């Protein structure tokens, strides 16, 4: 009889807990989803300049955000690039022109890199002039060849070069590697579909 009581108490606890949580999930999930859609919408707007609206196009399980101008003509495209950073998963939204030869802008959607070092890929509070300087290097970056990074040298945008962060070379390299790898897969996928 003793063990029956154990089972009953534990089962009841679990049922009550489950009931409470399912009610809570019903309330909070829509708010969380809405927030995430909002974040994505803002991010797409940030990486695709001059767009009026965008369409989500799924080609072989890869999501493309196709930016459109006022006349509903596609003008640029964005996609998510995901991969391993120094100590966390990096999720980057990359905005490009339609034939994917030039990056328009990028945005780090999520990262948990080393505070004060790797986190500079997103914001660098130490740089008083522009705390987003690392990401801004990607604006109008030529991608006809693979992206590379330099240290202590002035990078050349037409050659797809950017400056690595001092003390966070691995995080800097990870951003480039992730973009390179995703671009290599997405470019043929997207250009074939569009043309």
């Amino acid at each position, binding site marked *: 009889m003793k063990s029956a009581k154990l089972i009953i108490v*534990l089962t009841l*606890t679990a049922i009550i*807990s489950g009931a*409470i*949580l399912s009610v*809570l999930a019903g*309330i909070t*999930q829509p*708010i*969380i989803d809405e927030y995430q859609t909002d974040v994505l919408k803002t991010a797409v707007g940030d990486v695709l300049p001059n767009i009026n609206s965008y369409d989500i196009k799924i080609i072989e399980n890869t999501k493309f955000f196709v930016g459109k101008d006022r006349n509903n003509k596609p003008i640029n495209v964005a996609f998510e690039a995901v991969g391993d950073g120094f100590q966390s998963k990096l999720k980057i939204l990359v905005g490009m022109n339609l034939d994917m030869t030039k990056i328009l802008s990028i945005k780090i959607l999520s990262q948990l890199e080393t505070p004060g070092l790797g986190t500079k890929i997103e914001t660098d509070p130490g740089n008083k002039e522009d705390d987003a300087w690392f990401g801004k290097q990607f604006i109008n970056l030529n991608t006809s060849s693979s992206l590379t990074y330099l240290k202590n040298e002035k990078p050349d945008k037409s050659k797809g070069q950017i400056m690595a962060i001092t003390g966070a070379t691995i995080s800097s390299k990870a951003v480039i590697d992730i973009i390179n790898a995703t671009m290599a897969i997405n470019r043929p996928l997207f250009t074939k579909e569009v043309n």
Partner: protein
Amino acid sequence: MAKKKISLLKEFTKGLWDENPVLVMLLGLCPTLAVTSSAINGLAMGLAVLFTLTASSTIISSVRKIIPKEVRIPTFIIVIATFVTITDKSMAAFQPILHKSLGAFIPLIVVNCVILGRQEAFASKNNVGRSIVDALGMSVGFTITLTVLGAIRELLGAGTIFSLQLMPDSFVPWMVMILPPGAFITLGLMIGATNWINARRER
């Protein structure tokens, strides 16, 4: 119950100093070290623990007589996990930016030994009123400690407290303070100071 009943006030204040969960009992150090890279993170973590601990202690102490002792630990964990999930989901919905910076550490409150420890050592043996006071004292002590630890690290590591610039512009931030070693160094010094003060008081 041979233990002498102590006053409710004493029950509350013991968590602040004499039995401070972090500085004296050295419990819950994992989140303490990991999230305190800034004052706001420390405060948010503390408040999340405050809610979870108080709610769990209330429930556990009110049902303490019907929980068989063989299954008490799983029951405690289910109750704690329920409240942690409530905190996690509500934070994600209403404070998404804070939620993002605390990351994986909110779900990990489930295994924070401060909380399980209070259920086992206190709430399962005392009435509801006392348990709530005990939980509040412990979690306020925890919150203050984490906020102070976060503030020290943020001040030295970034020159700010609660994102307010306090150091002059010429101040060069000590990068190490917001990295994991800074957490160990600061916490070690705080524990040392606590022991030093206590040793002097006894004399």
